[in-house]
């Protein structure tokens, strides 16, 4: 119905601008620069719940665009999502899913399950046939236990005991594969997640800055923002302040600027003051 600022277009993508874009390209207009995020995200189950960790670097080419991005998105109190791939898609799709899960929770009158969240996002992504570049890791704790699922843009999912994704995903995964065991303690799990992320943030160009970590159990959610700062900018080695006279003055040219007085206005500042109030 009218009156709402937010109006969803009817279904799928609108490809109207494709022809225009082709025309622009043929005329030599360069396309906009794509901001590749590059990411490492990882999730590990342990005895009481799940540990999730993400780096915080966003790159544009070889420049760090933003070194403090939060790649952990809330879906509900007990379910979180990690996003890799197209940043906008991750942000918006998780936000949409968060709203839908909130409605579901109110209507069902019970806590939302991880499987529900995964199913909903999977079916949504499949409709877009992979054009939504969201590589998500959905984690949560519900009545059936703690779960981790990985979701790919085309809509495929996998429920796994541990998973890592993004440009630094394989590096992290190699660390986790080596040391993962069932029913770890919280400290072991946190250390493993940290080590996995540390490996990626120090080897992958596109991951780094901070390691953000959440620990989610049935009872609590611990946020570590950050758990560790990896990309610390070191102090300058030298003093680069330049002494006056370093740049030699070769010539001086003083020019008088001609101007005309257009308007003159005189205003008195001393005038009728309000007598001070003495109670």
């Amino acid at each position, binding site marked *: 119905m009218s*009156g*709402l600022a*937010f109006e969803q277009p009817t279904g799928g993508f609108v490809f109207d601008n494709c022809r225009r874009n082709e025309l622009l390209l043929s005329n030599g207009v360069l396309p906009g620069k794509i901001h590749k995020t590059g990411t490492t995200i990882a999730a590990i189950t342990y005895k009481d719940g799940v540990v999730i960790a993400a780096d915080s670097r966003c790159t544009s080419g070889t420049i760090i665009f933003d070194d403090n991005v939060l790649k952990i998105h809330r879906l509900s109190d007990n379910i979180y999502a990690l996003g890799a791939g197209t940043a906008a898609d991750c942000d918006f799709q998780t*936000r949409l899913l968060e*709203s839908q899960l909130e*409605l579901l929770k*109110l*209507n069902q*009158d019970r806590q939302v399950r991880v499987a529900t969240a995964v199913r909903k996002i999977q079916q949504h992504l499949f409709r877009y046939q992979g054009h939504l570049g969201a590589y998500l890791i959905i984690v949560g704790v519900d009545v059936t236990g703690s779960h981790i699922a990985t979701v790919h843009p085309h809509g495929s999912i996998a429920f796994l005991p541990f998973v890592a994704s993004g440009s630094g995903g394989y590096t992290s995964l190699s660390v986790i594969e080596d040391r993962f065991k069932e029913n770890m303690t919280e400290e072991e799990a946190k250390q493993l997640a940290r080590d996995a992320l540390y490996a990626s943030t120090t080897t992958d160009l596109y991951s780094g800055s901070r390691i953000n970590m959440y620990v989610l159990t049935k009872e609590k959610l611990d946020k570590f923002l950050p758990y560790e700062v990896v990309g610390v900018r070191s102090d300058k080695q030298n003093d680069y302040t330049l002494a006056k006279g370093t740049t030699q003055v070769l010539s001086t040219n003083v020019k008088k600027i001609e101007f005309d007085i257009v308007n003159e206005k005189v205003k008195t500042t001393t005038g009728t003051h309000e007598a001070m109030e003495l109670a």
Partner: protein
Amino acid sequence: MSERYGFSLTTFSPSGKLVQIEYALNAVNAGSPAVGIKASNGVVLATEKKSKSLLHDDRTIHKVESVCKNMGLVYSGMGPDYRLLVQKARKLAQEYMLVYEENVPPTQLVKRIADVMQEYTQSGGVRPFGVSLLICGYDYDEDRPFLYQCDPSGSYFPWKATAIGRNFVNGKTFLEKRYSDQLALEDAVHTAILTLKESFEGQMTEDNIEIGICDKEGFRRLTPAEVKDYLAQIG
């Protein structure tokens, strides 16, 4: 006389009324009583929830419903119409959240819900909602609670305290005497229960009334155990 113009919603009567809306208000006034009181630090909503038969198992049907984290509703009138409005209100709250990334302020949501109710008074083939809503919420920007009433016509009123449904006149008179701006939420709950008691037939127990409170923490429905405690304090 104006009965002659009562059949079509979209036709005014000579006296300038839309008689269908008047009749909708009649439906509301025949419904079970509901009370809303705004305290200094929160709002309380209370309603009678009598089962028609001893065989009813009413534990999962609720009259006091939450719309989002900081807002709740209760009604007087037709239950099914209320159910629909609750769904619409919840969706509107989420739509706001998606656009502004903030919990919807009570004033905004009330306006949107009232607009929905107004639509049903100016469209073809529909009838007005046979409910009046009491909407409570906490506004985090202004750091204060709000209580609103929404009528079938689409008009909404902010209240300090009000009663709707059966015997609402007596309820309001009772509240006028009892209300004060310094009321705390605890006292407001007591006052709400006493107001309901004025028009209650039979023994009031934790199973035949429902209470919801909204404060800075958010909106929640009281559990039967909590309601029992309040009733015990009143005696």
